């Protein structure tokens, strides 16, 4: 029961389930009718309410998952993920800054700048002449950058009016409520381009996985290749944050989960499995968050937090048993 087909089936099933279930459930017949004839409650659901939301969740989860898988491969550490290392918090902070000071710029651009600045900070702080920083140093400093970005975001919330602050707080948790087709197209187009860019760098990633010395021996410019890959991965994460907010732990969980589900061997298929698992996690989290309690729609980030935190703790105890931490 493993393999790419298994994952594709799961993804399709989750999409259908996400369209059917919610605060009010549809029957498959209604959904089918809406899809084929374009009329009735099924069509309304697909076209305006759940459709764009599910497609956005799919795209955002996929870019976050791919970003996580890239970082984990690049730093050869399952704990290296953009949400652990503060890049998603940085992207979230940039958006809060834009909202607080009324800067009118496209969200993906703002998020990308925030993510890149956070990554630049981690890079600068850990920079040592002639040394490649150890992954654990990067993770630790990244955590610190994340703490600081969150503190700044909270600080800026003080500037906002009461209802605006409540909205921003909800957004900072990571939510897919009220997404329309513009969000969906945005994350799919930008995400698609960035996915192509990152898959184009798989040869470099494969060389880097052998370790910096061997990679340099193979004629790779290690520093440049690392920066390019990290930059792409940060942009991928920022693309997800721009439409879904800084949802925690999706990027962290997706990589290992995807590989386990598809049994992927080659680097490219590992990356795609990570993207698939990310999409799966975010769609399921969103579904659970909006359908679990009658009358109440929780943000998806609450669910990924409740799922992801125990995963992180489990991962820590495993890494410790293997003596890697």
């Amino acid at each position, binding site marked *: 029961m493993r393999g790419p087909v298994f994952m594709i089936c799961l993804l399709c099933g989750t999409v259908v389930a996400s369209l059917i279930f919610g605060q009010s459930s549809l029957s498959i017949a209604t959904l089918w009718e809406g899809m084929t004839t374009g009329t009735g409650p099924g069509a309304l659901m697909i076209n305006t309410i759940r459709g764009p939301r599910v497609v956005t969740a799919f795209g955002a989860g996929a870019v976050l998952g791919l970003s996580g898988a890239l970082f984990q491969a690049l730093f050869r550490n399952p*704990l290296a993920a953009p949400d*652990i290392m503060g890049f998603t918090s940085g992207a979230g902070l940039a958006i809060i800054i834009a909202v607080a000071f009324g800067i009118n710029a496209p969200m993906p651009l703002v998020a990308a700048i925030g993510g890149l600045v956070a990554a630049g900070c981690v890079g600068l*702080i*850990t920079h040592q002449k002639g040394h490649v*920083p*150890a*992954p*654990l*140093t990067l*993770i*630790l*400093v990244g*955590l*610190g*950058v994340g*703490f*600081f970005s*969150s*503190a*700044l975001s*909270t*600080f800026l919330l*003080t*500037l906002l009016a*009461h209802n605006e*602050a*409540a909205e921003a*707080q*909800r957004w900072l*948790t990571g939510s897919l409520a009220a997404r329309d087709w513009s969000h969906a197209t945005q994350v799919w187009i930008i995400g698609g381009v960035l996915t192509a860019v990152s898959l184009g760098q798989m040869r470099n990633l494969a060389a880097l996985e052998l370790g910096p010395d061997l990679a340099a021996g193979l004629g790779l410019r290690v520093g440049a290749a690392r920066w390019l890959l990290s930059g792409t991965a940060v942009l991928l994460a920022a693309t997800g944050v721009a439409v879904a907010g800084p949802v*925690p*732990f999706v990027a962290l969980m997706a990589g290992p989960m995807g590989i386990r589900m598809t049994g992927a061997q080659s680097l490219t298929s590992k990356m795609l499995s990570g993207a698939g698992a990310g999409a799966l996690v975010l769609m399921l989290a969103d579904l659970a968050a909006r359908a679990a*309690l009658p009358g*109440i729609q*929780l*943000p998806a*980030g*609450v*669910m*990924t*937090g*409740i799922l*992801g*935190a*125990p995963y*992180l*703790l489990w991962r*820590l*105890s495993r*890494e*410790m048993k293997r003596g890697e*931490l």
Partner: protein
Amino acid sequence: MRFAGIVILLIIAVALALAVGARSIPPRIFLEALTHYDQTDPAHVTVAAIRMPRLFAGLIAGAALGVAGTVMQAITRNPLADPGILGVNSGAAFALLLGTTLLGRSDQAMVALLTFPGAAIASIIVFALGGGLRGDVGPVRLTLAGAALNALLLSLVTALVLVRQDSLEVFRFWVAGSLTQATTRPLMEMAMVASVGGLAALAIAPQIEALSLGSALSRGLGTRPGRVQAGALAVVTLTTGAAVAVAGPIAFLGLMVPPLARLIVGHWLRMELIVSAILGATILLFADVLGRVVMAPSEVRAGIMTALLGGPVFLWVARRLRPGAQS
């Protein structure tokens, strides 16, 4: 001399905490309020009803968190240990929120007692899963365990707030503590609990130091590691629980204070604890005053200010640790 220096700093912080605010009060009026209290004079009422409780809350929470951070860093041999980062604050605050929102109890003194089991459970979880009591564990694991616990509780609180349609105020309390609610907090009781914790810390300080020599050597010196660790957890629980009960979760104070204390007194845990308590109170009062000024007329919560100050300290320490090299 350095010791005199930090006492002077504390006095300055106390003076500022009393003087600065929406209504600035000159020292002369303040002394008058103490000697000839006139309850028709609004300035006197401000001093007695608002500034004094707030000052005491700051002193209690700051000193308690300074002690908590010092004990945590000593017992885990991890310079990134802090009640906020490791999720002990969150555990205590979560228990408090559950008490106030779920049980619907509003008598603060009773509810505040919930912070202690909350802090105890959180510290046991984070130390057990993060391997905090095995000093040979790198700092990444413990910090990540704390981050995971914080994230989990944050998600639960977000769900709780949204489910119960509570106001953003509950959330603000959760995200960062402040001294503004001082008048409604059980200050006297918590001052006593925090003092007990502080005295216990002073009592077990030599054993903690012995433990840091390594468990074999410390056993040879007659220390029982299990007992010392349990004692340290009890200290952390008492001090953090008291701090959260008076001020809510205040992060990064316990991180910043111990390295400063070591700069001043060197490696001598008893002295370090005393200096940490003083410095903790001083920094928290400064943070509170800064929060009143920086965006006046609205106030920034003291916990946000300490997080803004503490973030760079965290980065500075983390950068120097080079965890990859040691583990």
